[in-house]
Each structure stands twice: as structure tokens, then as C-alpha cells.
């Protein structure tokens, strides 16, 4: 806002005045009492005071009856012209016009509404008239005090803040102004950039943009696209992997089954062979059996033939006497048999009696024997119990002996250990010496190896040089090979020549009297020498290749041959071996050094251990002897064995043993007593049985004697059997006695035996034939089995044929099945293309990772810009909300510059009340209250100027800085000119030269403009109701 023109009529002491203001600094000057402050009051009244206010009475001229009228033209912040005219003292005395150009005016408001509109145009924290908190007189507010201060009102500004205003419009407008101030160009640049970046990716509400224009969308879509493709491939790969895995498995399975099938087929063949062998065996056995039958048949034929001869003899006429003799013999036999039966019946009775007597005697003897056996057992048990008792006694003694032995042994071991330790110490010393010697030997060997290695290396290339030579060898081989294209050289001698030829690296060929054409073939080179006449070398290959070979051959001579000669070896291989061998010496030297170090370390260790062992204590001799005496007579070796087996806890174990053996001894003693009682009972029963035995023994010999001393059981069986036979013979002999002697019977017998002989002979012939047939069959079957199968059958048992056939069929079916499955899987594999899909999947994995990283990067960057934008806004908001911080910096800077560092700082509160003035130093106090009036005035002026500057609004300074010295006033002039560039500044003063040069003052016209400063001589513009005494207000 800036003022354009002020017209005053009948306002206090001024009758009429019109002042035109320029942008920038306006210095309005005139002598005291001219009406400068009246003009300032008129401005305030025009803008702030309702025409009906009682305070307006003060404006009325005291000597005239006119109403005071003020007309003020001004520009608002948007560049619109406004004219307010107030005729104080009546309700309709206010009018407001507006204009775009300042020439043609339009009425905007009238009457009471004028002030309301003015409050809107000038939001300075003043309440609207008629409303709540509406002022009764001239309104006050922080901005009013700042921009239109009453003359001399310093304290009011310093102690008043925006919170004291009746309306918050002042705070709002000042906050807005200071926000704009905070928009430092650099800050704005950063904020604008951040905002632009944020807008690329985020909506106004802060959500991520999903439109295609957003880089995040593009990146996200790229990720999604790749993800979809990869997922599809992953499925394809998984399918293919499954199929490939299956195909691979089936391939291996098929191979295994192939082997199994072969084995099953072999087993089947073997089973079949076994069956043939088995059938051959059966045939052979059958042949043998048939042969045996034939033999029997042969014997039967012989017997039948003999009996036929006998029957024929009996049936002849010469057999009559023999048949009668046979009849007499049968009758005599019948009589003898009857007598024999009676005799046998009597003998059987005696045998039965004797048997009973012998059974009784046997029972008595058995019992006696059992009792004796029990007696023997009891005697053994007694002996055992006695032995065990004695043993227990012995064990107890042993336990005590072990204790004594143990104590002696411990003492002895300690003594021995001491002796051993000293011996060991001596050995360790010897060992240390030996190891030192060994170390010296190794050191010498290491040195020797070093010397040898160095000597060898002296003539050998280094590893790097060797690598160069190896590369040279490879390059030469390759270059030679590159020459190779094939050569055929035909030599056609016109007369006999002696030709020497070499093809490539082959063996030389000498042809002493060559007459006919000779063809030489080679890959790359043929060398022909004709006697001592001519040498022809023919090399294949392009020129460049030949040159390369020449260079490499030259290098070979220069480098390789030199190296070989120097090393005195024949080939690169030998050279490599020599270098390797030289390296061996270095390794050997290192090993010797390591061993030497180890030997020295061992020597030191041995010495240290020896020293420790020598310090080991030994016991006294008397004590040892006393302990040995306590051992007693028990063999030492036994005690030693027990002691040793007991280990470290021998003493405890011995104590337990002693207790245990004491208990055992008691048990054994009781057992002995028990056995002795049983022995007594057995002895009593034995006596009784002995008596019975003696009686039986006396009777039985007599009976046996009567029976002939034979075994009774056998005699009984024999007698019974004989009796049965005799009874049967009697039964058979009686009819025979009747039939014997008939001729018909004899002839019938002959016929019968003839038939039997013919039958037996036929059977014999059949049996022989069958045996021969089976033998032939067996041989044929054996011949049909191959030798290796017969051997195999000897080594392992064959399977059953049916089982082998089933196994082979199973194996074949399985092999066919798996083969079919493999072919199917392999076929499926070809269509799935798994490995390619997997490669593609790997590519996509990388692409997806890259796309995700890009997306992440973009998101991170977008988030970063958003975070930056938010942080900038927050900082901006924070800075401007604390108006003191926003304004304070400038005020403080200028105040410190004004006071030349006399003060350390100015603290201005959030609502612009000046809080403290800080002194320099750590313990600087607050000095606002003690500031001089002039300094307070200067501080207040600075605050006002800063407010005006930040609001870009005109400021009126009415005789400010009257208590300011020349130097500071000069400084202030600079500040005023600077502020006036942004905010129009009206300075009412009676001392214009404080602000202007004399040349800046108007001479004839009422005002003079120069360099943004208008000097206005008010004496020429103000018409007072009375004349002033002085006219030149420029004087002091």
C-alpha cells in the first residue's frame, strides 16, 4: 500500500493542504507547529476513525465553524486506486471510491460501510466498527502503531504484540507477508525443484500417481511384466525339471534293468541246463536200478532152474524110496516136538521166579548205590564247604595282604619314580644334546640345499622366464602348424644324383643314386640336398605366416637354445624338469630349516622337562623296609596283580574287600556244619539197605545155577520163542505126515517150476533192455549241456525253472516298460525345452532384479524428494509461525549494526513483542528496560521499518529519531532509503537536512524529486488559519 495524495480542509490548525506523495522516501519538512503531525493525524483519521467518533471533535478548527474534511488517495497491494473522503461530524460524511487508473472514480462505499471496507483493505488488526471489540476512538493495533505511529509513541510498540490487537487480521496479514519474506530465492529454488519432482510421482493428496506419466508407474509395470513372464517360465522350468529328472532317472533305471535282464536270461538258461542235467541223472539212476533188477532176475532164473532140476528128480521113478524115508522122518519129528514143548514150559516157570528175585536185589542195590552217591556228594560238598571256608579265610588274608602290599608298593614306586625321574632327566639331557646335534645337521643341510639351489638356479631361467620360453614354444608350434597346408615335392633327376631329404621334422632320407622320380610329402617343409651341389628348402604357408615362423625360429635360437645350452639340457621338457628340480632344493632347504627349528625346540623342551624331573623327592629306606615286612608271606606277584588291577582306588577297594571276605567266611563256616548233619543221615539208611542186599545176593546164585547161568531175559525170550516154534511145528507136521510120498504132487511141482523159469528168463531180458535204454538217454542229455554251464552249475545252485522263467519274463517286461517310459519322457523333454527355459529364467531373474532395483531407486528418490518438500514446508511454516524469528533476524542485524556490536542480540517474541536485548558475553543480561529513550526510539523505528518492509506497506514516521545523534541518524538515512525501495516512507521532520542534502531541497516548487527521494516543503502546501512567524523551516 502506498499513499498518493492527501487533502485536508479545516482540520485542526490547517485550513487547507494538499500533498502529493511519491513512491519511495518522502521527506516532508517544515518548522514546528506548521501542522506536520496534523497531516499525520489526518492520514490516521482518514483510514481509521469513523466520522461519527467523538474523538473527531478534536479535529475541528477552534476558530471556525467548519467540519474537518480529509481526502486520502492510496494504492492497495493489488495496484487498485482508492479514495477515501471523510467529513467528520456527521453520519454520512464518509465516502469511498475506487479507480483503476486514478482518473475515473467509482463509488465503492458510503457512510458507515466505508470503515468496514477500509478494514478489509487494510487488515491491520483493527476491529470493524460496530462489531465486537470495536474501538470507540482512534483504533490501536500493532500494525497501526508500526505504520502510523503517533508522535513519541515508542514504548507502545516495544511492549505491544499482535496478541494485543482487537482483531487477528493484523497477525494474519503480517504472517502472510513474512511467509513471502521467508521465501528466500534459494529456498524457493529448492522448494520449487522438490515440488516439481514430487508432482512427477505423487498426487496432490500425497498418494503415488498411478497414471502412465509417472515414472513409478512405468517402473512398476516393468517389474510386473517381468514377474509375469518369469512366473510362467518358472512353471515351465518346474515342469521341465520334473520331466528331465524323470528322464534321467529312467535312463539310469533302464541301464540297471538292462543288466538285470541279462542276468535273468542267464539264470533261465542255467535253470534249463540244470533241468537237463537232473533228467540225465534220473535216467542214469533208473538205468542202474534196472541193471540191479536184471541181476536179481538173473539170480531168480538160476534158482528156478535148480529147483526145476530137483523137482524133476523127485518126480521120476527113482524117487519112491526117498519119499517113504521122508514120511518116517516126519513122524519121528512129531514125537520129539511134543517132548520139547513140556520141557520148555517147566523152564519158563523157573526163569520168572529168578527174574523177580533179581529185581528185588537190584532195587536194594540201586538204593544203596544212590545213598552212596549221596554220601559221595555230601563228602564233596563238605570238602567244598571246607575249601570255601579256607578260601574265604585266604581271601581275607589276601585283602589284608593287598593293603600292606599297596602301602609298600606306593612307597616303593615313589622311591623308584624318584630314581626313574633322575634317570629320565639324564636321558632328556642326552636327548636335548642329540636334538641340538640334529638341528645343526638340518641347518647344515638347509644351507647345503640353499647353496645347491642357488648354484643350479644360476644357470636356469626364473619361473617367469620359463613361462616366456613355454609361451615361445607354444607360439612356435602354432606358427609352424599354421604353415602347414600340405606339400608334395616331386624330384625327377635327369641323371643319377645323391639326394638327402628331410620332410617336416621326420627322419632324414638318403638316396645315393637316385635316377627315378621321387615324391616327398610334408605338411609344411621339405629340405632337399643334392650331394654337395645344392640345397633346396621348400616351406609352405603364406608370407606373413612364414615370417612369423622365422621370427619365432630366430627367437628360439636366441632365447630357447641359449637357455638350454646354459642349463646344459637338451629340451624344454628337460629345462622344465631342471627348474622344478632346483625348486625342490628350495623346498628341501625350507623343510630342513623347519626341522632344525623343531629339533631346537624339542631340545629346549627336553632340557626343561629334565630340570623338573631332577627335583622330584624320594622316601626313606627304613620306612620302606617296615612296610615291606607287613606284607607277610603271600606271594608278591599275586598281590601285585591285584594291586595293579585295582588302580588308583586300591585302598578303598581293599577295605571293602576285607569287609566282604569277613562276611563270606562266616557263611562258609555255617555251610560246613549243615553238610556234616546230612552225611550222618545218609550213613544210617545205607546200613539198612545193605542188609536187604545181602539176603537177595545169597538166593539168586542158586536159581541161576539151576537155569544154567544164562541171561534170564534172553533165556525167557528164547524159551518162549522155542515153545511157540515147537507148537507151530507140531501143527504143520501132523498134515505133512499124511501127504508125504505122493507122485502126482511131485509132477505138478515140476510143471509149475518150468513155467516159472520161462517167466523169469523173459523178465531178465526186459530188464537188461530197459537199463541200456536209460543209460543211452542219460548220456545224450549230459552231452546237450555246454561245458561252461556245467561249471557254473558246480559253482552255484540254479533257480527252479519256473521261477527262472518268471524272473526273466518279469525282467523283460520291466525293461520294455521302462524303455517305453524313457522314450516318452525324452519326447516330452524335447517339447518342454527346460534348459533353455532355465537359461531364460536366469536372464529374467537378473532383469527382474534390475527392474526391482530401478523401481526401488525411483521410489527411494521420489520418497526423498517428498520428504525434502515436506521438510522445507515444515521449516517454512515453523519459521513464519514464530513471527519474531522471521522478523527478528533483520531487526537484530540492523540493530547490532546500528549499535556497532554493543548488544549481542534482540529477541522478539512470536507475536512481535520485543522481549530482550542481550549483552555480549556468556552472562549477558537483559537490558531492554534500561535502554535510553533515544535507543528505544531507534529500536522501535527499526522494528517499524522491518514491518513496513515485510508488508510492502507505506509507513509514516512523525518526528522519530529526534534523540538520535548525527552518526546514527546518518546510518538510519541509509536504512530508510533501502526500506523505501519496498515500502513507501513518509518522514515528517523539522530538520530535513538530517535526511537530505541541501541540493535535494526544492527551490521554487513545493517538492523536489531526486533518486527515489521526494523532498516536500510543507510550508508551501499547508495553509493555516493563522500565519507562522518563520518561513524557512530548513534552518535548525
Amino acid at each position, binding site marked *: 500500500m502506498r499513499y498518493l495524495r492527501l487533502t485536508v480542509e479545516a482540520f485542526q490548525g490547517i485550513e487547507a493542504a494538499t500533498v502529493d506523495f511519491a513512491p519511495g522516501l518522502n521527506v516532508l519538512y517544515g518548522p514546528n507547529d506548521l501542522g506536520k503531525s496534523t497531516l499525520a493525524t489526518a492520514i490516521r483519521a482518514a483510514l481509521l476513525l469513523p466520522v461519527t467518533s467523538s474523538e473527531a471533535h478534536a479535529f475541528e478548527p477552534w476558530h471556525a465553524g467548519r467540519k474537518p474534511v480529509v481526502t486520502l488517495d492510496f494504492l492497495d497491494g493489488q495496484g487498485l486506486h482508492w479514495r477515501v473522503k471523510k467529513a467528520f461530524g456527521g453520519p454520512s460524511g464518509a465516502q469511498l471510491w475506487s479507480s483503476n487508473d486514478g482518473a475515473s472514480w467509482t463509488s465503492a462505499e458510503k457512510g458507515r460501510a466505508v470503515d468496514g471496507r477500509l478494514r478489509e483493505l487494510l487488515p491491520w488488526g483493527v476491529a470493524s466498527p460496530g462489531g465486537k471489540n470495536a474501538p470507540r476512538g482512534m483504533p490501536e493495533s500493532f500494525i497501526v502503531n508500526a505504520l502510523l505511529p503517533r508522535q513519541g509513541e515508542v514504548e507502545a510498540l516495544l511492549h505491544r504484540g499482535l496478541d494485543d490487537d482487537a482483531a487477528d487480521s493484523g497477525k494474519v496479514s503480517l504472517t502472510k507477508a513474512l511467509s513471502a519474506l521467508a521465501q528466500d530465492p534459494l529456498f524457493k529454488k529448492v522448494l520449487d525443484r522438490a515440488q516439481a519432482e514430487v508432482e512427477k510421482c505423487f498426487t496432490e493428496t500425497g498418494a503415488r500417481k498411478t497414471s502412465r506419466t509417472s515414472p513409478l508407474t512405468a517402473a512398476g509395470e516393468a517389474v510386473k511384466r517381468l514377474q509375469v513372464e518369469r512366473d510362467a517360465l518358472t512353471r515351465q522350468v518346474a515342469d521341465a525339471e520334473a520331466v528331465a529328472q524323470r528322464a*534321467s532317472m529312467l535312463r539310469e533305471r533302464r541301464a540297471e534293468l538292462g543288466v538285470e535282464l541279462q542276468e535273468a536270461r542267464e539264470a533261465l538258461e542255467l535253470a534249463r541246463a540244470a533241468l537237463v542235467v537232473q533228467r540225465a541223472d534220473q535216467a542214469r539212476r533208473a538205468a542202474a536200478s534196472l541193471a540191479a533188477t536184471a541181476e536179481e532176475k538173473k539170480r531168480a532164473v538160476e534158482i528156478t532152474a535148480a529147483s526145476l532140476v530137483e523137482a524133476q528128480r523127485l518126480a521120476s521113478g527113482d524117487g519112491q524110496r526117498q519119499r517113504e524115508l521122508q514120511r518116517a522122518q516126519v513122524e519121528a519129528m512129531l514125537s520129539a516136538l511134543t517132548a520139547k514143548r513140556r520141557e520148555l514150559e517147566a523152564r519158563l516157570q523157573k526163569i520168572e521166579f529168578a527174574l523177580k528175585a533179581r529185581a528185588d536185589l537190584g532195587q536194594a542195590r540201586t538204593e544203596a548205590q544212590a545213598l552212596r552217591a549221596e554220601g559221595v556228594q555230601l563228602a564233596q560238598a563238605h570238602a567244598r564247604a571246607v575249601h570255601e571256608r579256607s578260601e574265604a579265610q585266604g581271601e581275607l588274608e589276601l585283602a589284608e595282604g593287598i593293603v600292606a602290599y599297596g602301602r609298600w608298593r606306593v612307597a616303593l614306586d615313589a622311591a623308584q619314580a624318584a630314581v626313574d625321574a633322575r634317570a629320565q632327566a639324564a636321558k632328556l639331557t642326552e636327548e636335548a644334546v642329540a636334538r641340538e646335534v640334529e638341528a645343526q645337521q638340518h641347518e647344515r643341510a638347509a644351507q647345503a640345499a640353499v647353496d645347491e639351489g642357488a648354484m643350479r638356479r644360476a644357470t636356469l631361467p626364473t619361473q617367469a622366464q620359463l613361462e616366456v620360453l613355454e609361451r615361445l614354444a607354444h607360439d612356435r608350434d602354432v606358427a609352424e602348424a*599354421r604353415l602347414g597346408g600340405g606339400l608334395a615335392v616331386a624330384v625327377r633327376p635327369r641323371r643319377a644324383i645323391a639326394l638327402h631329404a628331410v620332410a617336416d621334422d621326420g627322419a632324414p632320407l638318403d638316396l645315393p643314386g637316385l635316377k627315378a622320380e621321387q615324391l616327398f610329402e610334408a*605338411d609344411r617343409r621339405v629340405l632337399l640336398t643334392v650331394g654337395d651341389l645344392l640345397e633346396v628348402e621348400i616351406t609352405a604357408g603364406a608370407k606373413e605366416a612364414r615370417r612369423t615362423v622365422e621370427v619365432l625360429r630366430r627367437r628360439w635360437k636366441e632365447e630357447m637354445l641359449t637357455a638350454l645350452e646354459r642349463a646344459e639340457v637338451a629340451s624344454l621338457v628337460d629345462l622344465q624338469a631342471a627348474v622344478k628340480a632346483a625348486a625342490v632344493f628350495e623346498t628341501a632347504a625350507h623343510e630342513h630349516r623347519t626341522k632344525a627349528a623343531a629339533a631346537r625346540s624339542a631340545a629346549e623342551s627336553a632340557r626343561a622337562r629334565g630340570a623338573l624331573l631332577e627335583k622330584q623327592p624320594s622316601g626313606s629306606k627304613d620306612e620302606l623296609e617296615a612296610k615291606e615286612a607287613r606284607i607277610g608271606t603271600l606271594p608278591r606277584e599275586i598281590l601285585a596283580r591285584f594291586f595293579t588291577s585295582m588302580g588308583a582306588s586300591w585302598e578303598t577297594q581293599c577295605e571293602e574287600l576285607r569287609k566282604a571276605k569277613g562276611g563270606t567266611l562266616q557263611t562258609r563256616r555255617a555251610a560246613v556244619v549243615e553238610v556234616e548233619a546230612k552225611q550222618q543221615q545218609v550213613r544210617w539208611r545205607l546200613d539198612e539197605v545193605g542188609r536187604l542186599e545181602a539176603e537177595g545176593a545169597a538166593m539168586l546164585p542158586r536159581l541161576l545155577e539151576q537155569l544154567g547161568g544164562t541171561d534170564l531175559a534172553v533165556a525167557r525170550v528164547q524159551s518162549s520163542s522155542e515153545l511157540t516154534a515147537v507148537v507151530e511145528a507140531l501143527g504143520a507136521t501132523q498134515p505133512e505126515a499124511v501127504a508125504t510120498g505122493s507122485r502126482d504132487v511131485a509132477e505138478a511141482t515140476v510143471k509149475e517150476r518150468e513155467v516159472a523159469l520161462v517167466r523169469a528168463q523173459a523178465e531178465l531180458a526186459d530188464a537188461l533192455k530197459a537199463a541200456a535204454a536209460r543209460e543211452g538217454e542219460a548220456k545224450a542229455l549230459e552231452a546237450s549241456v555246454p561245458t561252461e554251464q556245467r561249471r557254473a552249475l558246480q559253482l552255484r545252485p540254479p533257480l527252479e525253472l519256473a521261477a527262472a522263467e518268471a524272473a526273466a519274463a518279469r525282467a523283460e517286461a520291466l525293461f520294455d516298460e521302462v524303455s517305453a517310459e524313457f522314450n516318452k519322457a*525324452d519326447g516330452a523333454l524335447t517339447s518342454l525345452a527346460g534348459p533353455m527355459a532355465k537359461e531364460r529364467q536366469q536372464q529374467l531373474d537378473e532383469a527382474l532384479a534390475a527392474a526391482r532395483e530401478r523401481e526401488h531407486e525411483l521410489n*527411494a528418490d521420489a520418497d526423498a524428494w517428498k520428504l*525434502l518438500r515436506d521438510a522445507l514446508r*515444515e521449516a517454512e511454516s515453523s*519459521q513464519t509461525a514464530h513471527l519474531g524469528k522471521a522478523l527478528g*533476524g533483520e531487526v537484530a542485524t540492523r540493530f547490532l549494526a546500528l549499535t556497532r556490536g554493543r548488544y549481542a542480540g534482540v529477541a522478539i517474541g512470536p507475536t512481535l513483542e520485543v522481549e530482550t536485548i542481550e549483552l555480549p558475553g556468556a552472562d549477558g543480561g537483559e537490558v531492554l528496560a534500561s535502554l535510553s529513550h533515544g535507543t528505544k526510539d531507534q529500536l522501535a523505528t527499526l522494528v517499524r521499518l522491518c514491518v513496513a518492509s515485510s508488508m510492502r506497506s507505506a509507513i509514516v514516521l512523525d518526528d522519530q529519531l529526534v534523540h538520535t545523534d548525527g552518526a546514527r541518524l546518518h546510518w538510519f538515512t541509509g536504512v530508510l532509503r533501502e526500506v523505501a525501495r519496498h515500502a513507501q516512507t513518509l518522514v515528517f521532520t523539522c530538520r530535513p537536512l538530517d535526511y537530505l542534502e541541501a541540493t535535494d531541497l526544492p527551490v521554487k516548487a513545493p517538492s523536489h524529486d531526486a533518486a527515489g527521494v521526494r523532498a516536500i516543503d510543507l510550508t508551501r502546501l499547508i495553509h493555516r488559519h493563522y500565519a507562522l512567524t518563520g518561513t524557512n523551516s530548513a534552518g535548525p
Partner: protein
Amino acid sequence: MLKLLHTADWHLGRDFPAFSEEARKKLSRARVDVLDQVFAEAERNAVDAVLCAGDLFDDPNPKRDFWEALASRLQKKRWQRPVFLLPGNHDPLLADGIWRDGTFKSALPPFVKVVDRELEHAFSERAVLYAVPCRSKASQQDPTALIPARTAGDERIRVGLVHGSAFDAGDWQTNFPIAKDAAVERGLDYLALGDTHGFRYVPADRLQPPTLYPGAPEPTAFDEQDAGHVALVFINRQRRALVDKRRVGHWRWETVRAAELGALRALAARDDLKNRVLRLVVEMNLPAPEYEEAEALLDQLAGTEAKHGRAGVLELHREGLRLDVANLGPQLEGLPRVLQAAARTLQLAAGAADTRLAAERALFHLLRTARGS
């Protein structure tokens, strides 16, 4: 003497989706450009034949640009030496694949032999080639099983040409598994393989008779060992083969980890970066001025819209690059107080894990924008 040039795995038409558009073009084009080096090597050494052991195209149906690039290069040659193009598992012999494409085949000069069946080709009376193509993208069949074994009395040089994996047979991932001792079993004096992208003998310790992968002439990934070569093979009358490894590739793929600014400076100062595909992992915590320098160095390496980067292709991992926000005093001096206040707010935010990254970058943006760079 039989002289052969053995190459494989050109992968013409391969895409590199992990890289930027520009880098993808460069790397894809390099696969075609390297063919000039491969063929020049064949000419320079006057080889008897060129064996191309499969995966010559990345796909059974490559774009026209790629097969035309190959055909046009071959058309310019006035060769008699045969060039054998073997279908691999990437470009198998499919009915609708490139090898059956009449347009492509008619564009090839007569000396180019597409191995479109099991092939026995006599180089001369003394040398013979057996080639077996891949007929599918995947299989568990060993292609060398189709090469007849050497018969008694056959003293010819026998060379095999197949494509497949000579790795552990137990590995299910093996595709077209090739037995390690196939060369010995089939009586071959040289077995030319294609599939793996690094130059390697199989097994590594057996050089005679050689079973060799020459690798891709132009590398395709960071983890490939010794890629970028062809093999020059000389087989003499005694049937002993000599192999010479020849570098033909332009690009070298390299991974660099920079843990301090000095390493980054040294990297940026290198003069061999033009042909590098560089994977750069930055892991350092720097105060503001050095952070700014690091950003500037990364810009130099990566390039900007106005200027090419120093690295041929850069894959940058910069998550580990952090701004030391604790000591920003000197950098904040002279800035308007409102900017200083914002910087302090961001410093506080950098102390929290969830806002650390954003706050660090925000601070960097603030400082850089305020300084007008």
C-alpha cells in the same frame, strides 16, 4: 596337416533384459559384429574348415536381422573352405526352425554346410568329420552315441562335431549329455563341442585327444569363465592335435566392488572401460562433499543424456552408497536459515531406520540443488 577353426555359441539374437535399452542394443549387436573377427581369424590362418558347434542363434526362429547379418557376411566370402553350421539346443533342427527356412538357406553360399542330418564329411582321404545335430531343445540322449566308432585299420584323422553338456551325468540338468571319454571311445582325434560359454577342455586335465568347448566368441554373462575366444586346431599326420586359443571378443564383463572413494576414483580413471560391461557395487558411507564426488564419478561412469558414460555398459548397484549425515555443518553454512532448519529435520529423519534412505537422499538433493549443481 588339417587346420580347423572351431567356434560355437554365437547366440545371435540374444536379448539382455537386465540392461537398459541402449545397452541391450550394444550387447546384441556385438554378437553379430564378432563374426567378422571369427571369420578373419579363419582367413588369416587359412584353415581347411570352420566348425560352428551349435547355438549359433539364440532361438530356433531368430529375427530376420540376425540371420541376414550372418548370411550377408558369409556371402561376401569367396571361400572354398567349408563352414559347418551345427544346430544346437537353442536353435535345434525343427520343422519350422531357421535351418529348414528356405529363404535363409538360399541366402547361404555353397561352401556353407548346414548339418541337417547325421553327417560324415571327408575333408580329404586322410581326414573325416562326423557331425550330429540337435533335433530338439532338450534330450537325455548322448549325440556322440550316433558317431561310429573307429574301426581297425582306419588311420584317418577323425573329428567329431556335436552340441551338448559334458558334465556329470548324474546331474538332471545335463542336456544332451556327452560322455567325458566320448572322444576316446569313438576313436576321435578331436571332438568339437558347443554349449558352455567358457573356453575349456573336457576333462580339464586331458589334452589328448582334445575334447574342447571354445566358448562363446562374445561373452554373455558376468559368471562366464574365459569366454570370448575361438579355437584354432592343427592336427598333424600323426593325428596329434594342437589347439591355439585366439581372443576375438570385444566386450569383457567385469564385477567391481568399491568400498571407498579411492577405489571409485581409480575405477573412473581407468582407460579400459569402453569395452567393459561393468557391474559396479558401491558400498561406502561418505560425508557430503565426498558423497557429491561419488555421485559425480558415478555420473561419469554411467553417462548422462548429454554425454556417454565412461563404462561401455554399466550395471550399477548403489544401495550401499550412504551419506554421512552426522557432520553437515560446513555444508549448511551460508544457506538460508529456513534451509538449515529443513536440513536439521532431515538429519533427524536419517536417524530412523524407516526414513534413513529417503532422508539421506533428500539431504543430498537439498545440498546439490542449493549449490546449483
